[in-house]
């Protein structure tokens, strides 16, 4: 009764380890193939969902608002799969949004630099220095992406339960170690961790509803209670709170919505100058 969330500097390598670990444990396996189903359910093109998982928002690329919406849909679908239990997941950023759930074993797989080099520059023959530079640039980009999207650095080893370097350990040994760790009592599901996961699912559902209108909203769920923090100017506080309550009232699992509209000082200052 454990979930394994694999993060890797190489999606291909993470996927291979994930599939092998799932097979060894008899767990179901989840990766970016799920994006097809999410695209069908949400109406968001699969390419945009993939881009949200890979690129940091920018003026010329995807907006922060769109990324937040797409990631909320991914989060909701992945957590719904996690609630079925015994799952290995790779490439869907799960390690970043279920980080507080105790029965999720978070694994970071570091690939061989040559493998990453080939993945980042397919078909090109690069020197070791050029590969190192490419890897370093990619790592910085992933760091920026994860901090921007989930306020967590996915390259920081302290955010994981286990870090495996395929430069030092054989693939089969790595799979064996992951499967072994999944059997530890500390990663067993319990009432509290299942509640945390359910809470995350409700919060993700709320985000998919709120973000198109309130992209800056911060959402937390605690059982049937959802707490929302957002910014607003004084005159619109009540209206905003009512609107949010009405929007989230549509979620069947929610029976109370608490809204905190914090003063948007910058907007208030700008309006007072007009």
């Amino acid at each position, binding site marked *: 009764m454990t979930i394994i969330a694999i993060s890797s500097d190489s999606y291909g390598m993470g996927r291979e380890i994930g599939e092998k670990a799932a097979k060894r444990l008899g767990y179901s396996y989840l990766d970016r193939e799920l994006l097809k189903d999410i695209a069908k359910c949400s109406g968001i093109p699969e390419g945009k969902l993939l881009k949200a998982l890979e690129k940091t928002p920018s003026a010329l690329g995807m907006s922060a608002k769109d990324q937040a919406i797409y990631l909320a849909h991914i989060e909701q679908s992945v957590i719904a799969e996690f609630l079925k239990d015994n799952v290995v997941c790779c490439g869907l950023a799960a390690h970043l949004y279920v980080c*507080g*759930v*105790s029965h999720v074993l978070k694994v970071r797989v570091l690939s061989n630099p040559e493998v990453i080099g080939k993945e980042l520059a397919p078909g090109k023959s690069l020197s070791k220095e050029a590969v190192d530079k490419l890897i370093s640039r990619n790592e910085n980009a992933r760091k920026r992406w994860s901090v921007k999207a989930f306020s967590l650095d996915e390259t920081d080893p302290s955010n994981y339960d286990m870090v495996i370097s395929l430069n030092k350990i054989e693939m089969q040994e790595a799979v064996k170690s992951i499967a072994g760790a999944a059997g*530890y*009592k*500390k*990663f*067993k599901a*319990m*009432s*509290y*961790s299942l*509640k945390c996961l359910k809470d995350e699912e409700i919060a993700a559902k709320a985000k998919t509803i709120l973000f198109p209108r309130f992209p800056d909203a911060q959402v937390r769920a605690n059982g049937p209670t959802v707490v929302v923090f957002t910014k607003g100017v004084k005159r619109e506080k009540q209206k905003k709170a009512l609107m949010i309550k009405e929007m989230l009232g549509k979620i069947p699992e929610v029976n109370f919505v608490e809204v905190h509209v914090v003063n948007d000082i910058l907007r208030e200052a700008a309006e007072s100058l007009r």
Partner: protein
Amino acid sequence: MDKKVCVLLLDDEPIVGKRLKPAVEKMGCDVEVFEDPRVALERIDEKAFDIVVTDIRMDEIDGIEVLERVKKKSPRTKVIMITGYAMMSLAREAMEKGAYDFIAKPFTPEELRKAIAKAAEALGTPLQSLAA
């Protein structure tokens, strides 16, 4: 007649035992309630309970110590930890030390009843009327 499932309930807040005792008794269990962990441990030394429900944060002796003592005395006993200070590290510590379940406060009597029913089933003494 089937043997009743014996439950020890330990929480230093009297209201918790007072509220939960009747809810667990309704399941057909024999329930003993304690507020003082020292007295509870003395009783645990005398009798092997099927299920122990203990708070974690208590003065003098904490729930983790109670868990360790129970598992040492009776490895088959299922220990359910309850706490108002739930966090991932504490939950993992409790599970690693042999807790059967970990529940965050506040919880409803129904949530505890479900955890007890699951523990009773794992012990091979399912509580027919409430296992659902």
